[in-house]
């Protein structure tokens, strides 16, 4: 039961919060603005904020020169593929843990989480070696598998947390109604858990999209996603601010939009249900 707050107080809150919010958001805003400037305006002294000749030229240049679509497509396949594959593997596992818990369920869950804590750099060379031997270095398939494995613990955890909120009686009712295990999961559990599955999907696409250790180290030309596309601007090309900005905007825009949709589920997903 919130009490009425004086308008002055509310105005002050609003002013401070908006000020800080815009300050935090500023680097993104600046990047987006710069992407519409000419290269000369991008480095003009003093900097121009809004009053410049808006142009889309940078976008077409970046697209032509670096084949943005190919990187984007790689990102989509890698992030989407690894997440969907992970969910397909995780649903049955999460079903088991949520509805047929045993004494070991907790240990298994915690152990799964612990694999997430393994520092990537500690196993970089073995993975590199395995990838070479299996001929999957610089392939989308290889990255789909690795990112799926990295995010599998989070996917299992999130689904487990959502499944636990579904009353077991409903699944038992389905069993009494003659549903086989497959039908029980397909017709009853999955549709009921759809909101949870959707937010799991969203969060893990974001995590996979932004993953920048394996994607940088296990790809070269063919399978490189947007993380690598941007990293390639770290050399002299980075001095072309407007083009760098256009490339950056294109790399973050899809996920920024997805992210805003998923902010509610973000917390319980990222803290493994420890904060709700």
């Amino acid at each position, binding site marked *: 039961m*919130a009490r009425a707050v004086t308008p002055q107080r*509310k105005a002050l809150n*609003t002013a401070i*919060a*908006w000020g800080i*919010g815009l300050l*935090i*958001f500023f*680097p*993104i805003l*600046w*990047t987006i603005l*710069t992407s519409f400037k000419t290269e000369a305006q991008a*480095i003009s*002294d*003093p*900097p121009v904020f809004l009053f410049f000749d808006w142009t889309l030229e940078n976008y077409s240049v970046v697209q032509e020169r670096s084949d943005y679509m190919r990187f984007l497509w790689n990102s989509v396949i890698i992030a989407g593929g690894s997440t969907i594959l992970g969910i397909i593997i995780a649903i*049955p*596992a999460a079903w*088991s843990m949520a*509805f*047929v818990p*045993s004494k070991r369920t907790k240990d*298994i869950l*915690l152990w*799964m989480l*612990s*694999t997430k*804590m*393994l*520092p990537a*750099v*500690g*196993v*970089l*060379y*073995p993975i590199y070696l395995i990838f070479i031997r299996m001929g999957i270095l610089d392939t989308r398939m290889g990255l789909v598998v690795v990112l799926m*494995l990295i995010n*599998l613990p989070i996917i*299992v955890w999130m689904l487990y947390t959502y499944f636990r909120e579904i009353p*077991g009686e409903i699944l038992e009712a389905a069993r009494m109604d003659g549903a086989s295990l497959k039908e029980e999961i397909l017709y009853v559990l999955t549709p009921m858990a759809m909101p949870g599955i959707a937010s799991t999907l969203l969060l893990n696409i*974001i995590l996979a*999209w932004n993953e*920048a*250790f394996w994607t*940088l180290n296990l790809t070269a030309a063919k399978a490189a996603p947007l993380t*690598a596309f*941007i*990293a390639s601007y*770290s050399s002299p090309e980075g*001095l072309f*601010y407007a083009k760098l900005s256009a490339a950056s905007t294109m790399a*973050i825009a899809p*996920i920024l939009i997805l*992210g805003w949709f998923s*902010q509610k589920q973000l917390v319980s997903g990222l*803290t*493994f249900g*420890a*904060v709700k």
Partner: protein
Amino acid sequence: MATQHSRSAARIMMAPAVILLLGWMLVPLLMTLWFSFKKYLPLRGGDLGWVGFDNYVRFISSSSFWPSIQATLIIVGGVLAITIIFGVLLAILLNQPMWGQGIVRILVIAPFFVMPTVSALVWKNMFMDPVNGLFAHLWKFFGAEPISWLSEASLQSIILIVSWQWLPFATLILLTAIQSLDSEQLEAAEMDGASPLSRFGYITLPHLSRAITVVLLIQTIFLLSIFAEIFVTTQGAFGTKTLTYLIYQRVLESQNVGLGSAGGVYAIILANIVAIFLMRIVGKNLDA
């Protein structure tokens, strides 16, 4: 609470996830352990035989080791301090009544969705560049000499970039925790005559302690292995070579796999020390 049939079905359905993760964990781990006891230089002769703990000793006694530990600790500690202090303040601010709360929330969260390579590159070039960066313009405007951020204040710069990325995470989690605080508790304290400051100290902060711990531990695990930010900005120069980056250089740049693997084992041990504490907290939550 189930039948034999459903229990055995459960085991089968859990198997793919468990087997995959077991393989993902054990195979590379054992290989790293194996390499760490070998002199192994893929480009200069390959496997040159067992060397016992030589790699472990050499990794520690190398002149880059302690600076790398120092850099790691400064970066992790700095980012944690900044994100948690400002995270608590921001969470409290965002929990106040205001106009356009939803939009402010979105503005604050946005940096979390920016991929690390983008944020590192944008900060490096468009803000921290000593000639054309915004900071340089700002300094000149006030008549000061622009700073070459990434070489003169390299650690601070990296801390700033990484904090910007992680502040939304801390804020979001702490905000969620604040919102779960029963307002009746605060009202009761107010009735009991507690001032706003003591209400914060005695009720809000203790309520947040668990969320703060969770933020602390999860961020530590991610921060210990930050890579892209350094890879894109300084490439480990100017004292920003963290343990992760040092190992990366040993393995991929100088192709000394044995030495790098020994470093990897150290990193794994370090991460596990943090992980144990996190698991305790998460595990307790499972029973509830």
